[in-house]
């Protein structure tokens, strides 16, 4: 291996940040559009965190993420961001219009736009960063392919690459494994785990697939507007039959096998 072919760090050096200072904070927030979906939401995202927000569809998870990122103002309470945070965002794949005639590299390059500022066009360094991000998620060979011709899993990787191209400190993902087959889901989650471990990236993801996140997140939050439920804690503390039963309204079994956690609702074969 040539000397200069050392593996590059996944992310460039993060800006100096005082220890213990969180990236984002919600304090006693009521979240929603016109009326509150969830109230009393308190949450801190620290550098290097890995938080998964789970709950049923329509339970307020996406609204929480949008409030956390500052897209929606809280209806009550406070949102704080002690310092600017470089953020990468991965929307639900179905929310991205695949009709646009854009290549994979074009889409990923958009991740660089916020840092460029108004009126400035992307340059060689931006394109190099995009190439690295595409390589990191294993689709470097697809850079010139049309986004609209990709499979669902490839599109998801493209959107993750776009988020990584921003050299983020915080990666926020909304249902990143929605509609994926089990192999693609595992692959996508492995990518996130590696980014988190090797790059020191803070990850916040929302998912209605508890099992998809049970083996990756460090912290878990439950959000369900119908039950007025908001709870956040360490994974071990939250991933208990009692806590999950309160969330899903039925008995839930948590089993560990071969180093992986499996979560089953009781009284049926369907997985939580």
């Amino acid at each position, binding site marked *: 291996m040539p000397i200069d072919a050392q593996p590059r760090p996944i992310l460039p050096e993060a800006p100096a940040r005082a220890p213990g200072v969180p990236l984002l904070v919600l304090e006693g927030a009521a979240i929603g*559009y016109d009326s509150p979906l969830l109230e009393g939401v308190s949450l801190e995202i620290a550098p290097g965190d890995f938080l998964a927000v789970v709950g049923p569809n329509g339970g307020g998870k996406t609204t929480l993420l*949008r409030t956390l*990122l*500052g*897209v929606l103002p809280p209806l009550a309470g406070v949102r704080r961001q002690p310092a600017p945070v470089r*953020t990468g*965002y*991965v*929307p639900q794949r179905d*929310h*991205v*219009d695949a*009709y*646009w*005639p*854009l*290549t994979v590299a*074009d*889409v990923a390059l*958009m991740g660089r*736009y*916020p840092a*460029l500022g*108004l*009126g400035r*066009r*992307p340059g060689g360094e931006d394109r190099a960063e995009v190439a690295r991000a595409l390589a990191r998620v294993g689709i470097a060979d697809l850079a010139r392919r*049309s986004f609209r011709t990709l499979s669902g899993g490839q599109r998801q990787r493209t959107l993750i690459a*776009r988020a990584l191209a*921003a050299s983020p400190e915080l990666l*926020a993902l909304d249902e990143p494994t929605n509609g994926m087959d089990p192999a693609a889901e595992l692959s996508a989650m492995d990518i996130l785990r590696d980014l988190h471990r090797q790059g020191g990236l803070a990850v916040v993801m929302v998912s209605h697939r508890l099992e998809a996140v049970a083996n990756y997140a460090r912290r878990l939050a439950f959000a369900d507007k119908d039950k007025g439920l908001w709870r956040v804690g360490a994974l071990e503390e939250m991933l208990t039959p009692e806590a999950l039963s309160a969330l899903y309204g039925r008995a839930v079994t948590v089993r560990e096998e071969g180093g992986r956690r499996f979560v089953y609702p009781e009284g049926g074969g369907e997985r939580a």
Partner: protein
Amino acid sequence: MNALSEFLASKDIWRDPLLASVIAGGLCGFLGVYVVLRRTVFVSAALTQLSTLGLICALLAEESLHFEAEHAGVQLAVSIVFSVAGALLLGALQARRRLPAEAGVGIAYVVAGALVVLGANRLVHAAHDLNAMVFGNAVAVPFSDVLVLGAVALVCALVHLAFAKELVFTSFDGETAAALGYSTRAWNGLLYFTIGLAIPAAARALGALPVFAFLTIPASAALLFATRLRTAFLVATVLGLVAAAGGYALSWIWQLPTGATMVALAGIFVIPGAIAKGARG
């Protein structure tokens, strides 16, 4: 051949209208890429109606105030005010969640259309001009209109050159753009402002209905075969320009209605793209 020679010999008559048609066709072709990709074709239809309503209001005011001469500049200014205000309002409605955005567009379209019919019914002297203004059968375009159209095209070009990446990003994936700190409402407003500005100015040259067609057909034709966004913008602009110029020349030579000829020619341009798309599967 005689008709062509006659057409070429009449350069002084058609030079300004043709120039205006070319600018309007190119401008609408370019903006149409956003209109089609954002699935807001009926927004442009509603804005075209609002622009015509502005024109009717200006004509009614001129008649009720007993102005002897037409004030083209005032008519255009009122049309622009109606169109831009409608564009900003419809853009803002898209961000609201109380009603589907299509409902607001539909209401604007049909109410403006009804008011155009009612207003036209009250016109006494200008009624004969209105058909030409709406359907684009006006042979003569004064040079002052060409200048206004050129200025509008320049403003739109500068805005879209300077803020291309922001307009594309917020149009393609507004959710992510908002999450990364973009004010999608402001960027959508800027995009709709340029469309609202272009429609009345282009309608002076092409007519209201051809403007709607030019905001849809060239972009659709370009998007059928373009695999890059830049190519789509370029091809849609060129198709709009060629359809407007070619339609104007053919309507002169064959003594056909100008607007309809332009639209029909633009429609023909969809065929190669459709064939190419079909061949690709």
